[in-house]
């Protein structure tokens, strides 16, 4: 594989998604693209890169980008943080929205849907509590393939038990030959759409909880700042932001600050992210 092929593919990935191909992932580029190359009878990375430079193969480019994205996820990933989010933080939000009885939740970069369904299951398990409420859960991802899988609600045996308790698995999934299918009751609570975080936020544009986890890790600094300002734009005044276990807003944006009541979660500050971005 030539350096220029790697550069072309990495450039395509970053242009489409903001994701930089980390050094450690560079050597896996060939493994990641192998299935696509086999499917299209493409002999080498150089040949693949060659077909992509002209921009005449948009479908192939989309598939290549999807293959390069890291879609790793599982149910209730980072369980202690989820307990905090769906425990005290959700209760606080419930009090704050007691009048309008409406909560909007956005899982930005939700991959194959486990994160969004984790929230939906918890809501469904508290039927009496949420009776009369409108709870909108949106899962979005730049990868069409991931969103298709998320919407289908089908998971392999390996995936279905990853992070999920056996009782939840038995309650909310039906075992079918070769797959576990999520119940329509849960599926109905979540909507999915293809969306890139670099674009303006999706409808309804004002979210009370935003999860953006393990997505920004490989964004370059300016992209990360842009995305934080997008998230701030989409956040209700008292919205809570949840990042991945190793991620922080500190030094990245002024639009969010650590939630004094919930360690590891963040609240909207009211400060403009855009101003911060312009000033730095």
């Amino acid at each position: 594989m030539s350096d220029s092929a790697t550069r072309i593919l990495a450039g395509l990935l970053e242009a489409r998604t903001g994701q930089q191909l980390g050094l450690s992932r560079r050597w896996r580029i060939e493994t990641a693209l192998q299935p696509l190359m086999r499917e299209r009878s493409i002999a080498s990375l150089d040949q693949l890169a060659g077909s992509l430079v002209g921009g005449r193969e948009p479908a192939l480019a989309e598939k290549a980008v999807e293959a390069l994205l890291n879609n790793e996820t599982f149910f209730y990933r980072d369980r202690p943080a989820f307990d905090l989010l769906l425990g005290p933080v959700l209760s606080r939000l419930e009090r704050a929205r007691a009048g309008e009885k409406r909560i909007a939740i956005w899982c930005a970069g939700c991959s194959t849907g486990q994160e969004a369904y984790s929230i939906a299951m918890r809501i469904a398990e508290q039927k009496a509590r949420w009776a009369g409420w409108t709870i909108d859960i949106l899962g979005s991802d730049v990868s069409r393939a991931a969103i298709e899988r998320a919407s289908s609600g089908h998971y392999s045996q390996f995936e279905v038990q990853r992070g999920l308790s056996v009782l939840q698995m038995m309650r909310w999934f039906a075992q079918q030959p070769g797959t576990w299918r999520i119940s329509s009751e849960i599926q109905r609570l979540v909507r999915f759409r293809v969306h890139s975080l670099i674009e303006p936020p999706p409808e309804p544009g004002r979210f009370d909880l935003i999860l953006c986890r393990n997505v920004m890790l490989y964004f370059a600094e300016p992209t990360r700042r842009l995305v934080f300002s997008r998230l701030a734009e989409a956040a209700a005044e008292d919205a809570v932001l949840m990042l991945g276990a190793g991620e922080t807003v500190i030094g990245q944006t002024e639009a969010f600050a650590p939630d004094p009541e919930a360690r590891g979660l963040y609240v909207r500050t009211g400060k403009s992210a855009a101003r911060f971005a312009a000033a730095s």
Partner: protein
Amino acid sequence: MKSCLVVDDSKVIRKVARHILETLHFVVDEAEDGREALSRCEANMPDVVLLDWNMPVMGGMEFLRTLRRADYETQPKVVFCTTENDAAHIRAAIDAGADEYVMKPFDRDTLESKLQIVGVA
């Protein structure tokens, strides 16, 4: 540190499980079948048992039923860990007193979350 007893007749599985459990800071003990597991429990009750289904001498279900009937001062959490992967087996295990259920193959994240769910990690 919490302790885990790994009960499996496959040496390879015991080794893999031990490795993951040690990275999760568990003290690990092993048994090859249900009977050996019972005597381990009597000598030194673990916090959690990782239990295979099919084993010679005494299988997982018989071990679990015997364990749950016995009047030990404390009962460990029991996580089945088996290739049996259909709803009927899973229900039977839960009815017999299992706290969690892992279908092989599994990885560290799966095991860690199951241990968190039963409250030992």
